[in-house]
């Protein structure tokens, strides 16, 4: 048993694209745009039991200018749509959007005068998490899919 020498392993090779992707996928600052019942499940995911911090996404920012990922959690009404669009426009690149719950994916069971039929009619969406509401496991699955997407995309710097 000698001392472990690390000088042989003191560097590693990677691609810049992968390194930036790795850094970005584990430092997701999210903006929770919570409007309805799905918010409860969002909170369950964020709290200690499921601990979204394990994925580097434990730091909600309530300013769109500091956020990387927009979590749209809950029903979006036509009255709310311009607000959502403005929040999205205020976020800095690179940015991603997660549609959390069927209401945001497609409008869900709502088919009426008030509800937007899916937020992708207003802003681009990267990951859809269906469910009414989605269970925390489902949310974490969606989050990992988003991480894959971030890792594998071309990183704009």
């Amino acid at each position, binding site marked *: 048993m000698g001392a472990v020498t690390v000088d042989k392993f003191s560097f590693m090779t990677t691609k810049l694209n992968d390194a930036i992707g790795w850094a970005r996928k584990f430092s997701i600052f999210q903006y929770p745009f919570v409007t309805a019942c799905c918010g409860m499940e969002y909170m369950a995911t964020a709290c200690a039991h499921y601990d979204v911090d394990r994925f580097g996404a434990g730091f909600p920012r309530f300013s769109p200018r500091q956020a990387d990922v927009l979590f749209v959690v809950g029903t979006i009404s*036509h*009255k709310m*749509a*311009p607000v959502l*669009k403005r929040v999205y426009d205020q976020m800095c690149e690179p940015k991603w959007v997660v549609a959390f719950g069927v209401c945001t994916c497609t409008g869900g069971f709502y*088919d*009426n*005068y*008030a509800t*937007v*039929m899916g937020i992708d*009619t*207003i802003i681009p969406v990267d990951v859809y998490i269906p469910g009414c509401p989605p269970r925390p496991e489902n949310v974490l699955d969606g989050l990992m899919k988003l991480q894959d997407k971030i890792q594998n995309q071309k990183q704009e710097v």
Partner: protein
Amino acid sequence: MNLAEKVRQKYSAMVSDLASNAGEPVVIAKKESVKNFMAALRADSEFSFDLLMDLFAVDYLFWEEKEKRFEIIYNLYSLTKKHRLFIKVQVRETDPTLDSVAGVWPAADWYEREAWDMFGIRFSGHPNLKRILMYESFKGHPLRKDYRYNERQPIIGPLN
């Protein structure tokens, strides 16, 4: 004698009929005198309805037996007497107007705005009768039965 009958006995000029709904007494009031009627019910120490719990409208468009299309329902409660009374007022489709009771109970202010927004009931004498839930550019009144359920009026985004 139940509460509705007592009310009719005292204010017979302002009451047109009585009814009951799920065991609760209902008074059908005349539209013309609704404001005076409500003010009297609030001030009268026998009833002292000091709390307006709810105010809403119903559209009976497809009920042939209903001669008048809209019904405005007042849900009154007395905190001192601990009794409750429902008051209904019927208005016609051609003239959905009645007096505001916002001067009697300030709580009526937003309820009446909601009834205006959703059903297009005009409350004359209301201090600020504008939409409360929908946006100002919205056309029509969405809870009217002849508003098509899937008619959308997005502010931004496509019509789908």
